[in-house]
């Protein structure tokens, strides 16, 4: 693990420095030329929630896994990327995350609560194990901490649940346990990879509220990966829209929802059913995400974009078009606000 000698003067939360900043992070699978994650730039401040949105296969999850150092090193290749986390600099190209950072300062919860817990061990033991990995606490201290955490994530009768096995819990409860396990060491950053996708709608809302409440209590930053725009509207502070491994638009949540500038974001917004307004056929974004093998040169959305023109053969840079609102499109800013109905 290489640490930069230069430490930022301000630490997270107290100053303007974001808790996590990723610059020019690219990732490709070995044997392929095209980056599946291409020049990703994101930042998250303490207490904020960044939502990374995009359809399946756009590189959301793989980015998160890479940041946690969970991808097998013999499969991926990281040509470029730098990360600042809690004022420390990490060179993503030469190092993977220190295991001590994982689960301690930075935690992750997964999409599938049904399969994300070890079926052979009791809930209490699994959470205690996470505590003991990162602290010098004794077995009983760790159990007290685990119990307290289960209580905090809203599990009823935590004493009893501690002794139960994962298959005895419902999906929503398992996701709460996952959250308890992830947050038991008070991480400053939580990465949640589609945490509500596998749950039904009422439980989804409960889990999102829980994440938000815990965030209010601890001031942690959150990266939430989702394809559900309803979730984004519910919880996001800032949004990054990803398409085929690239961020095509990012900004405050209000900017993205009220004034989407990238044709892809527009497409996403118009594919959400609405309760108000005239009833019309739902629009979809035609086509599918291009595969790595036949990624178009220039703008990667070109093959599906209704506005595509000749200049799109050149890759558009991410440009500022408003306060903290960036778009990668040659046609931005759009001359008029396009009605999304």
């Amino acid at each position, binding site marked *: 693990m290489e640490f930069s000698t230069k430490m930022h003067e301000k630490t997270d939360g107290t100053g303007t420095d974001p808790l996590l900043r990723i610059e020019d992070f690219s990732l490709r699978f070995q044997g392929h030329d095209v980056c599946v994650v291409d020049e990703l730039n994101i930042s998250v401040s303490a207490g904020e929630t960044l939502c990374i949105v995009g359809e399946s296969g756009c590189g959301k999850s793989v980015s998160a896994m890479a940041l946690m150092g969970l991808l097998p090193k013999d499969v991926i290749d990281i040509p470029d990327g730098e990360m600042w986390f809690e004022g420390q600099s990490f060179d993503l190209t030469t190092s993977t995350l220190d295991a001590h950072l994982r689960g301690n300062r930075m*935690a992750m919860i*997964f999409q599938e609560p049904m399969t*994300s817990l070890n*079926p*052979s061990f009791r809930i209490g033991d699994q959470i205690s194990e*996470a505590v003991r990995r990162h602290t010098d606490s004794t077995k009983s201290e760790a159990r007290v901490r685990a119990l307290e955490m289960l209580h905090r994530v809203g599990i009823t009768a935590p004493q009893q649940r501690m002794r139960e*096995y994962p*298959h005895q819990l419902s999906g929503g409860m398992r996701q709460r346990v996952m959250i308890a396990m992830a947050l038991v060491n008070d991480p400053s950053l939580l990465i949640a990879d589609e945490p509500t996708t596998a749950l039904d709608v009422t439980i989804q809302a409960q889990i999102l509220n829980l994440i938000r409440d815990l965030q209010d209590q601890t001031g942690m930053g959150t990266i939430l990966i989702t394809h559900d725009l309803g979730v984004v509207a519910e919880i996001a502070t800032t949004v990054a829209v990803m398409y085929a491994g690239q961020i095509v638009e990012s900004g405050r949540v209000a900017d993205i929802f009220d004034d989407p500038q990238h044709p892809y974001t527009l497409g996403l917004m118009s594919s959400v059913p609405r309760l108000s307004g005239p009833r019309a056929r739902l629009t979809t974004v035609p086509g599918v995400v291009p595969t790595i093998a036949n990624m178009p040169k220039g703008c990667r959305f070109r093959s599906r974009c209704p506005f595509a023109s000749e200049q799109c053969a050149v890759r558009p840079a991410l440009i500022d078009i408003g306060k903290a609102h960036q778009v990668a499109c040659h046609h931005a800013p759009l001359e008029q606000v396009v009605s999304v109905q």
Partner: protein
Amino acid sequence: MSVSEPAISHRAENRVWKKFRYHRSAMLGGILVVFFILIALTAPLLPIPDPAATDWGAVRKAPSAAHWLGTDEIGRDVLSRMIWGAQASLLAGVVSVAIALLLGVPLGIIAGYFGGWSDAAISRCTEALLAAPFLILAIALAAFLGPSLTNAMIAIGISATPIFIRLTRGQVLSVKAEDYVDSARAIGLSTPKILVRYIFPNILPPVLVQATLTIATAIIAEASLSFLGLGQQPPDPSWGSMLNTAKNFLNQAPWMALWPGIAIFLVVLGFNLLGDGLRDALDPREH
């Protein structure tokens, strides 16, 4: 067999036991196995003659009140030899499978979890060993090591190892892809800890089933090696060597071949039924 099923949970244990309890053939297998184990363990306590004591006045006597299962060609009590022979057979079955597990499971875990060149090396060796038939390999190894019961057990154990390497490797490959292994890494657990706490318990059920079935195979292998003179050495009794002597007297004293034959048949049947029952009981698909 799915691997996401808890191996050692209380509720699961109860459910497994319940399913096992109502599995008639499995219970029959269990009873047979327990019967032979009890006989083998209590051999020193039973009121039977010394299995090596000869009686030239009672050579090749048919079963009678004095000798329930008859006597052999130098007047030894066949019942006594059968009971002591059970020790050799069961010991060979259990010890050789233990050897195969101790070698095969760690190698399988290494091959499956780490992949790469270690997987390539281990898998190629496994395939090479599997290319030779189990019994032929055991005979070759036993002949190489020299005739004794211990060497026979080592030979059988090594011959049975590739089955466990291959089974374990396959199970690890599927367990490794489970989300809970990723989540273990996400909380920062070390690789050894993940192997011991997350991989091993979850590959166990199919390995246990295979181990039970392999005990049956190993018992046949021990009997075969002893039959060929490569296992238990005279005068110590073994079902295999008893069969070897008995084949010379099939017309005059058929009981000499009958009893060891029946015993081998029953104990192998017992372990096979038990293994099948375990497989059904541990199979999460049939709740």
